[in-house]
């Protein structure tokens, strides 16, 4: 059985049967911060980083992540940017139910890593893939800007 490198730790997992990365994280490793919302790459609740890029784990085969660096919401706080974004989210009361927010934070961190000063349009382009049924979009935008400003 292959190994996956997740948040800096090696895990031996079963990647057979085209199992998406999301269900390896959740059902095999009980890393429950990554959420299931649609299973069709439509909502971004399952967003994680693979080699620093945003990946929708619900449709990304776990086997495709072998030999690559996977970061989830549980690990992103170990990077300075991840920590700042998480803090901004808490301070700005971005959460309502919070269920979408792991994925939102993962997208925001990737955005800010590549572009420390994103415009509103830059934010739209990256955050477009993340649905929030609680509608906290303006707070998400504000929190991203607050990280740029700090």
């Amino acid at each position, binding site marked *: 059985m292959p190994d996956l490198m997740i948040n800096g730790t090696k895990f031996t997992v079963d990647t057979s*049967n085209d199992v998406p990365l999301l269900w390896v994280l959740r059902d095999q490793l009980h890393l429950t911060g990554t959420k299931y919302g649609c299973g069709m790459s439509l909502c971004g609740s399952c967003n994680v980083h693979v080699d620093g890029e945003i990946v929708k784990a619900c449709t990304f085969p776990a086997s495709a992540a072998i030999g690559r660096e996977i970061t989830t919401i549980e690990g992103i706080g170990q990077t300075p940017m991840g920590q700042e974004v998480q803090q901004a*989210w808490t301070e700005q009361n971005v959460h*309502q139910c919070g*269920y979408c927010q792991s994925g939102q934070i993962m997208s925001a961190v990737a955005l800010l890593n590549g572009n420390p000063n994103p415009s509103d349009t830059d934010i739209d382009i990256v955050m477009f893939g993340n649905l929030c049924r*609680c*509608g906290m979009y303006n707070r998400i935008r504000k929190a991203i800007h607050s990280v740029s400003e700090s």
Partner: protein
Amino acid sequence: MTKVPPVSRRSFLKLSAAAGGGMLAAWHIPLTAAENERTAVDGALQPNAFVRITSDNRITIITTAAEIGQGTLTALPMLVAEELDADWSLVQWELASPTREYNNPKTFTQLTAGSVTISSLYKQQREAGAAVKEVLIKAAARRWGVSASSLETELSKVIDPRNKRSATYGELAAEAARISAPRSPTLKRPSEFTIIGKSKVRLDGAGKSNGSAKYGFDVYLPGMLTAVVKRAPKFGARLISFNAADVKASPGVVDVVEIPSGVAVIGTDFWSVYQGREKLRPVWDFSEAAIFSSEDQYARYDTLMDKPGTVRKNTGRVALAQSRADQKLESTFRFPYLAHAPMEPLNVVIDYNGRDCEIWCGTQWPDADHAAAAGVLGLPARRVNFHTMLSGGGFGRRGTMDQDFVREAAHLAKKVKKPLKLVWTREDDIKGGYYRPSAVVRLTGTLNKRGEVTSIMGRIASQSAAIGPLMESFIALIGEDARTAQGIRDIPYDIPNLRAEVHYEKSEVPVNWMRSVANSFNIFALETFIDELAEAAGQDPYQFRRNMLANNRRCRQVLDTVAEAANWSSPAAAGMCRGIALLNSYNSYIAQVVEASLDGDQLNVHRVISAVDCGIAVNPDLVKAQIESGIVFGLSSAMGKISFKDGEVRQNNFHDYPILRINQTPAIETHIIDSDENPGGVGELGVPCVAPALANAMYQATGERIKSLPMFNQNLQIT
């Protein structure tokens, strides 16, 4: 459904010592003799802890309403902490499990719905905090041999200013637990508040930022199996057969089990059962299924518009006013079914071993779920241990009248008798019913020569979520109108002759309340119709509304505030159109102005300005968050639909049941009116007005009235 206990049995606060030298304040309801006897047999009552103070000076507030995103876990502790003079940085939350002592004093159940949490618990929670503070002061007074009145409290400490000493609540808790709590403690005046009215950061925010917050979906038990259910593709269809062999041969599948709602595929993990389910090839009997199209249903509802319905409101004489009217206007509106689509799909973790049962579930109605599961399993309630988890949204779907998803899990557990997690996929959710009902609404209005509205008559055809008179009286308790005339029968305007009639339609399609319930369609109809009347009267929509609010000061104030903030008295900016709408519901008031522009088929919603009077805003930033949330929800509702063809739901997932995305979300500006009135509800308040205000704005640009939802389609995109 849960039995409603008699009102006369007033609960009171009872204190006891907690392990490790702290104290517990618990609600206690005096028992009847029969219950006393049963309790003696069954063992001690559950300690229904409400406030827990531990010797390390931490204060845990056990919150009795569900957290579905609205901020309960912050707002309710704020109420307790205020009166307790607690050090807010030491306050933490815990979700209550279902027991009668945690019932809402207004609804006699633990249902979280109808925007009643804060308004109904405002006094109770503060009284609890105040009572605990009084006993802590008494304990200090005894310890120091001084009079209680010479002592003060601040930041979780009792202070003796004369003798310059203090003790923390944690240090005093064990002694305080031996003193009986006062029944009517003194409460602060609003001017004395230091926590209520402040925009505290959410207590559940940090855990939701780092992935550690646990929702129902996140519960894993040793040896737990996962199950998905194949349900009938048309409501009311019956299962004839299915291909169990192929499914069982599928990797990871452990069993295939028939339950009343369909066929469950059970296996080691989600992916296995999800794939296995594809191979089921079920055969259904559709002879008793609802086979219809949305168009058929609208046509049938249309015919009802010419027939009198059940009268839900009748003041003055509408027929006479209509016969004498100078002008008479009539408009008919159509509204589709809608799915709540909470971000976390439904799920239940259940562990039943044939004797006892334990359940973990994010729900809006834990006590009803608890009772329903016990009922299905044939167990006494005490053998079912229910854990209320965080919910990834609810909007009404997690509080259905028949507890459908928990009941389904219990049926499955009864057959499997192993720990398992029942999961709904997003498609299961979108296709699974319990929708906001579809509706047709006809409004008839009359004007006199002076352009004043002399009558309004509303006729509504829809399904009701309430089945039977018991449900209806229960729904009345939480302020919802079972017969779907909400919004029209309680119109805020001075209308001398008002009549509301309802045709209550039956269908196999299960419906349920959705955030803002009948207001979600009736207010669209009413507030766009008011604009039609204003135009017929040759008046400005804002002034026209204002003229009908002589007897409603708070409505006038929100309307004036929003008009001023939107600079209504000056014309809209070039290329910009704007519309206004008003709502008084949930003991709160809101007026909204929407600014939009149309560029061909592209609609841009620029800004939504709201003025809100919700009485005392316990946490103003969370009130604003709720209004923002409601606006996005309301715009999403104007954009999507659940439609039927041959009895089958056509939508599947977020690609064909769209909800608003970040780039479509307008700027949102919310003004909260300063108030000392008791709090009203805000969870639903932001939803109903935004779509009619937008429709009123679009009329300015297009000259066309929008009379059916969704108002966005392939030709009209919101950008």
